[in-house]
Every structure is written in C-alpha cells, then in structure tokens.
C-alpha cells in the first residue's frame, strides 16, 4: 500500500528475534489483514507493524486495505473504529480475533499470542472446557477495552481470543480505549481491562478461563427445557 513501509519503530531487532522464536512454532499460515488509512497516523502505524510481522516468517502474511477497498472483509469489523486488523486462516477464514487501534505496549503480547493460537495447536486448555464450548449455538462477542500500559490487560485479551479460536461462535476484540473517547463515554470506562459481553454484561479485570467459558456458554448455549 502506498505510503506505508515495512518498517516500524515499534519492532526493534531484539523484539524481532523474540517474535521469530514464537513464529517458528507455527504449523499453518496466519493472515493478518488490516483496514488502515495511510493518511492517518495510527492507520499508518498499524500498517507498518503488520507489514514488519508479515515479513518475518513464511507462515505469517499481512495484507492491507484502505477503507472502502474491500468491503466484504471490512464488513466483519465494527465500522465505528479504525484502524483495525483481524486474524484469518486461509481455509477457515476469520478467526474471530480483532485488534482495534495499534497493539503496541503490553498489547504486542496479545497479538503474538493470537497469531500463535491461530496457527498452531495453541495454548493448552482443559478438554472439559472445550467440550462446553462445542455446545454453543449462538454468537457471543467479547470486547476487551485496554490501555497499552496495562500489564494485566493482555491476560484477558489472550484468553478471550484463545476461546475465539476454539469456537466459531466467539469473536474477541482488543480495543485500545485511548483512541476512542466515545467508547470511554459509552461504557463509562475508568479502569481496564473491561470486557463487554454481547453489549449486555461486563467483566471487570482479569478473569480465569473457567469463568469466561461459563459466561460465554451462558450466553451462547441453548437452555435445556425440561417440561416442554
């Protein structure tokens, strides 16, 4: 994309080495697709970050689209927030994991974990939890608001996005709340992480994977009807 180079001040040579160590564990290709406006600072910054990551290893690819250029992919994401990037697999498509804003600071951890979880067997998770997720029949959207300086936030983003890789019904966003004042106001965000579940409920702070699975299944599974 014109105006965006495969160079990012956010990724130092030392970081490249660490990231490569993770990418070498990948078993299938992961695509990072960004919707970025090259005329806008944060759009350019996200685009540069994705291009650098896409050049590091053959199993990680990146593609950038300007707003309006690929409406089919763009329709997957919330139109109210840009820039955004999502993780895709060549065969199954969108993984459900998206990042609104630039995942710098502590959130680079979330992005690298999401790539790892999408393109490999992923972080271990108990079978009983996977079985619960398999019973889901309705979509559940987890939106975690973060601050890039918050060292607790990636734990929540990583867990939610890990679950999104395990169920086609779960989607999980990271949102850098500092970029979207209207969201701070809408959700009364004073602390992070805050995870909004289907625009109805909120989880405050970092929750254990068991707790998140419980909440997700409560929203996404049909309730048993004993007497009908």
């Amino acid at each position, binding site marked *: 994309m014109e105006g965006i180079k495969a160079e990012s*001040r*956010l*990724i130092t040579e030392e*970081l490249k080495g*660490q*990231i490569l*160590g*993770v990418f070498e*564990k990948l078993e299938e290709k992961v695509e990072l697709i960004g919707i970025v406006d090259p005329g806008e600072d*944060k759009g350019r*910054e996200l685009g540069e970050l994705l291009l650098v990551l896409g050049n590091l290893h053959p199993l990680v690819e990146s593609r950038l689209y300007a707003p309006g250029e690929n409406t089919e992919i763009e329709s997957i994401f919330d139109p109210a927030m840009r820039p955004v990037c999502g993780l895709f697999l060549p065969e199954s498509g969108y993984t459900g994991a998206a990042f609104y804003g*630039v*995942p*710098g*600071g*502590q*959130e*680079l*951890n979330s992005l*690298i*974990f999401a790539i*790892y979880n999408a393109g490999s067997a992923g*972080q271990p998770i108990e079978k009983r939890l996977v079985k619960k997720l398999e019973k889901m029949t309705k979509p559940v959207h987890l939106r975690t608001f973060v*601050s*890039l*300086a*918050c*060292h*607790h*936030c*990636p*734990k929540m983003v*990583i867990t939610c996005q890990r679950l999104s890789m395990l169920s086609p019904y779960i989607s999980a966003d990271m949102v850098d*709340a*500092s970029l979207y*004042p209207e969201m*701070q106001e809408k959700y009364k*965000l*004073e*602390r*992070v*992480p805050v995870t909004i579940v289907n625009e109805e409920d909120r989880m*405050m*702070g*970092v929750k254990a994977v068991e707790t998140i699975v419980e909440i997700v299944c409560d929203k996404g599974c049909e309730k048993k009807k004993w007497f009908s």
Partner: protein
Amino acid sequence: MSFINFELEDFRVQAYYKKDFCEIQKEDLLGHWSILFFYPADFTFVCPTELSDLQDYYEEFKEAGCEIYSVSCDTHFVHKAWADASETIARVEYPMLADPTAKLAKMMEVYIPEEGQALRGTFIINPEGRVKAYEVHDNGIGRNASELLRKLQAAQFVAEHGDEVCPAKWKPGEETLMPSLDLVGML
C-alpha cells in the same frame, strides 16, 4: 509495622451520637465498611475543619455503605460539650468515639503519650474488620474527605473485582507505547 490487613482487636468505648451517648464496640464495625478518623483533641482549630469536611461528604460515604467514626482521646462528655459550643460540630451526624484511655489510639499506634493526644490517622476498615488502607499525618497536616472517599471506593472496587485492573489515565493523542514482550516466554 504495617497496618494493612491488621484485624481490629476487641474494644468497647463510649460515643456521642445523634445528640446522645451510646456504646460502640468492635462488632458494630463489622458487616459494613468503616473509617476510623483520629484527630488530636476537641476544641482545636484544624479539627473542626476536617470533621466538617467529612460531614459534607457523609451522605456519599453512607451511599458507599461506609460508616465514619471520629476518634479523639477526649471523653464523650467533652464531645457533647464541643457540639453544644460549636455550630460546626453540632452538624456532625456520624458517631464521635471517646477514647480517654487511648486504647484505640494505642491499638492503631497513633497515640502521642507526652501529649495525651492522637495523631491525625485515618483507617479504612473492611466489613471483616481489617485495615485495607490508612494514612497518618503529623498534626499540622490536614486531610481531605474527597480524597478519602476516592480511597474508600478504590478499596471497595478491589474487594469486589480483585486487583488485576489498572486505572485508566488516557491522554488524547498519546504516542503508541513501545512494546514489551513479557508473556511470550510463557509459551
């Protein structure tokens, strides 16, 4: 020694409350959040300002499920005399504890033996009777009720949600933070 998580010992003191005398003991502080607010002595100048400031925020403390207990080493009779003599103190609605033997002041290590008075110590106590936050000032330094309310709400927030949250202090137009990969070592 730190008083964080210190559990109040048993005590029983007289108090001036709602224009009457009553007895307050440790059990009265359990089951809700409490603030023990020590001040040097009745009939002094800075103290009524602080106690009046607390009274201005008393409704908000009550809404937050918290009772305030002011404490000095005076008797409950002196508290009454002060309330009778001062319009500012007459407004006070929270219990004013009398600690003439300094049992409470000594328990919280705010007692100055050579003066027979307490330092300006504030203790936020959880419903189980344990100290979750406190501050002790030299007696020339006053305290701020709105700041105390913020600390109480923060203590209540952590009690409810755990401590794995960060306060959000966003500055518009901030530069993206340089990344640090702390967690990938876990893979």
